[in-house]
């Protein structure tokens, strides 16, 4: 009798989900955000189809405001996996110069929500893997593994298909698409343990290092390039920081830390008293903001 560990069971479940998508979708894609969850998802895809390379491309919906270190890992990760990397930047947002400093919520809406819709329409993808987990946020806890979006990409939380056993109903009408979340049942701790156990390469920003920072609205932000508007006379302060979650650098709060190894990161996480989304400006609106964003088509 072999007792499978919880990570072995989570891994097997995610692989099963990915293979089901491959068997039922015509044109799948994996959304790749370069973060730790994407890294785990990509690793699982390599396992699911080995010895074949994962039979779909990676898609990065880029906002042009990610950390430099993320852009560096992006190309390398795709190449290592033997997958095509597609990068989409919303041309309208680009033209209008939408940025997180001047445009607030519009930045996320145009670069990410609109950008994603554009990319899915452009390439006619009918299934997109995403790295969302149910433990991240309240409205995520109720999302199905196979989540259906209407022709306009909207999510209807009251009209979800029941998911029984391991039987996923992937049938869809014309113009409809599926978002698939193979990491649904993973927690933040599971992700870190798995990265540690499997030796998965992640962006160095997750590890502590001295980095130039400024404080904005209670968030500790990293000055990642010259686009960061400093107040007159303001100079970035070097602090030992790392990130629990990665997004657009002007929107992602760092925490002061000395953790430079995975066990130390896990140690900090277990002893910490705040959730990982606390560092995200996007979730700070009204209580049900994520649910609202998802109905509009946010991933």
């Amino acid at each position: 009798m072999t007792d499978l560990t919880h990570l072995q069971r989570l891994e097997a479940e995610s692989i099963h989900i990915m293979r089901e998508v491959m068997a039922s979708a015509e044109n799948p894609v994996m959304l790749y955000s370069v973060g730790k969850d994407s890294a785990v998802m990509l690793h699982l895809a390599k396992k699911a189809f080995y010895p074949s390379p994962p039979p779909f491309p990676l898609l990065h919906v880029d906002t042009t405001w990610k950390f430099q270190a993320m852009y560096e890992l992006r190309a390398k990760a795709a190449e290592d996996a033997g997958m095509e990397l597609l990068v989409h930047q919303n041309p309208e947002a680009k033209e209008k110069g939408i940025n997180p400093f001047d445009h607030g919520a519009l930045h996320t809406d145009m670069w990410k929500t609109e950008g994603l819709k554009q990319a899915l329409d452009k390439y006619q993808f009918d299934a997109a893997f995403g790295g969302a987990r149910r433990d991240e946020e309240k409205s995520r806890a109720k999302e199905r593994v196979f989540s259906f979006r209407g022709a306009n990409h909207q999510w209807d939380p009251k009209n979800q298909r029941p998911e029984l056993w391991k039987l996923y109903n992937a049938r869809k009408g014309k113009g409809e698409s599926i978002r698939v979340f193979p990491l649904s049942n993973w927690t933040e701790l599971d992700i870190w343990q798995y990265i540690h156990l499997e030796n998965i390469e992640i962006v160095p920003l997750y590890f502590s290092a001295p980095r130039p920072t400024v404080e904005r609205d209670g968030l500790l932000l990293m000055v990642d390039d010259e686009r960061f508007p400093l107040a007159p006379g303001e100079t970035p302060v070097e602090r030992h920081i790392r990130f629990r979650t990665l997004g657009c650098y002007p929107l992602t709060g760092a925490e002061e830390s000395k953790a430079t190894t995975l066990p130390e990161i896990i140690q900090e996480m277990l002893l910490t008293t705040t959730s990982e989304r606390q560092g995200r400006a996007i979730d700070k609106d009204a209580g049900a903001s994520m649910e609202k964003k998802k109905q509009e088509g946010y991933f």
Partner: protein
Amino acid sequence: MTDTPSVYQTDALISQDIDAYLDIHQHKSMLRFITCGSVDDGKSTLIGRLLYDSKMIFEDQLASLEADSKKMGTQGDEIDFALLVDGLAAEREQGITIDVAYRFFATEKRKFIVADTPGHEQYTRNMVTGASTADLAVILIDARKGVLTQTRRHSYLAHLIGIKQIVLAVNKMDLVDYDEARFNEIVDDYRAFAETIGIQAFTAIPLSGLAGDNITNPSDNTAWYQGPTLLAHLEDVELSNTLEQEKDFRMAVQWVNRPNLDFRGFSGQIASGVVRIGDDVRVVPSGKQSTIASIVTFDGELDQAVAGQSVTLTFADEIDCSRGDVIAAASAPPAVTDQFESTLVWMDETPLLPSRSYILKIGTQRVNAAVQTLKHQINVNSSEQLAASTLQLNDIGVVDISTDRPIVFEEYADNREMGGFILIDKMTNATVAAGMVRFSLRRAQNVHWQAIDVDRQAHAALKNQSPRVLWFTGLSGSGKSTIANELEKRLHQTGRHTYLLDGDNVRHGLNKDLGFTDAARVENIRRVGEVAKLMADAGLIVLTAFISPFQAERDMVRAMLPDNEFVEVFVDTPLAVAEQRDVKGLYKKARAGDLKNFTGIDSPYEAPENPEIRIDTTQMTAEQAADAILDWLSKNA
């Protein structure tokens, strides 16, 4: 606030020796369970408490929780744990849980996945959904109220879906002064009921989700109770995943892995048993045999793999195997059937239509299936069998199902993965039902298709024609019969062997027992489809003139016939025009309310989306229509 109990993370170990901690936590097992109870039994509070006690709630979440508690909480200045898990905005307003939500927490021994399933009656389908992947069910009872109808319903469903571990959580003990007699009374009540539905054993625990008694720590308030706390019990129960390994080997093929000409592997997740290199295996349903050459994974080849693992297998011989096949132990392969008895839980607003063709998904197999017989419905409150002609949302019934191709299966009681299936509506793509195979109907194994020497090709060849079923569909009074009649005359004149099946005529004979409800309309078309198929087998060109309002049934007949033999002719007459003609005076009667379920008036007509031929009768006479169809036939001979 209760202190964090030691069963969770040992902070000391984390801070002093993180590597030792990680080693322990990498060997944790995983238990999936559901919580169910009535609307006010305190499920969400209990789960909120488990998360809170296991430190799965962080300070920022707690701050927003405290703010929410003051704003809309029901607990005064205390934290309302229910707000933590009632996620969707709509539910927060209504104060009820309306969808299944998954929560996670962990102790030293186990990771837990909790399906929080709603107690509200109309959402029973969510409870079945949550239960389908669970090893254990926590059934909550309000100590003040005792065993309720909802308790019976949820227990019945949990048992039906094959959950072997039942916990009776007698909650809100603080509100009955931790009274032992009250607890015993409830347990006795529940036992009496449980035995009637076949629940052999359960574990009863007195607790309070709000006050925290017997959740993680034994409570001084219930000194009379010697059993485990809820969490201690969850940590120690046996996992069904381990038990699956003792059964015969089965793996449904998900995907054929062919990176190059030298490698052909079969990928899947092992449903039961153990597979080793050199094992003799059989591919079902084809029956082809080989031996396992290798068990391939990204992390290297394995000597053996067990139930629950996702692997890729290669065979020693080149034999056919593809998605939908089951690879099984050669000495004990699973059975195959195309007719079986099953329990069905209906999950859609649109009721079951017996005879309608649905998509059935079981394992990785996908076939067309129809409910042949609805034997009875089950009242889940009383376990009574009721006569029924259909199943509505949340109804449970026992049915006979037939499939268009044999499926590989095992009885659900023996193997959940090989015996659980879903039905999908072909038009809406909704998952309309969950089913559990009870047993194969013996008929299917004994009645074999009679092979006939003079086959359909021989019939057609003698008549020197290609058989066709010209299926006229359209509203009453659209002109189907008139055009079909005109067309048959022309075909007959050119020496074709034809037969016209007309709606009104068939209803005087073959289908005189059928009315005009949706279910009867489906059966009407099924029979006509079967007759048309036999006639086409005999080599005839068959013309049918039926309203046939539903796309699903037209597609069902199409699926019965070889490719290109079914020709859908949409006689497209707007309702206003048909009603104005009203040749038989039926529209007038229907409008007056003297004729019920009349298509176009109080019963729907689904116009064909892609008919082979569309006849616009506002632009064409019957003669012109017949010409157009003849023209189409000669071009598509």
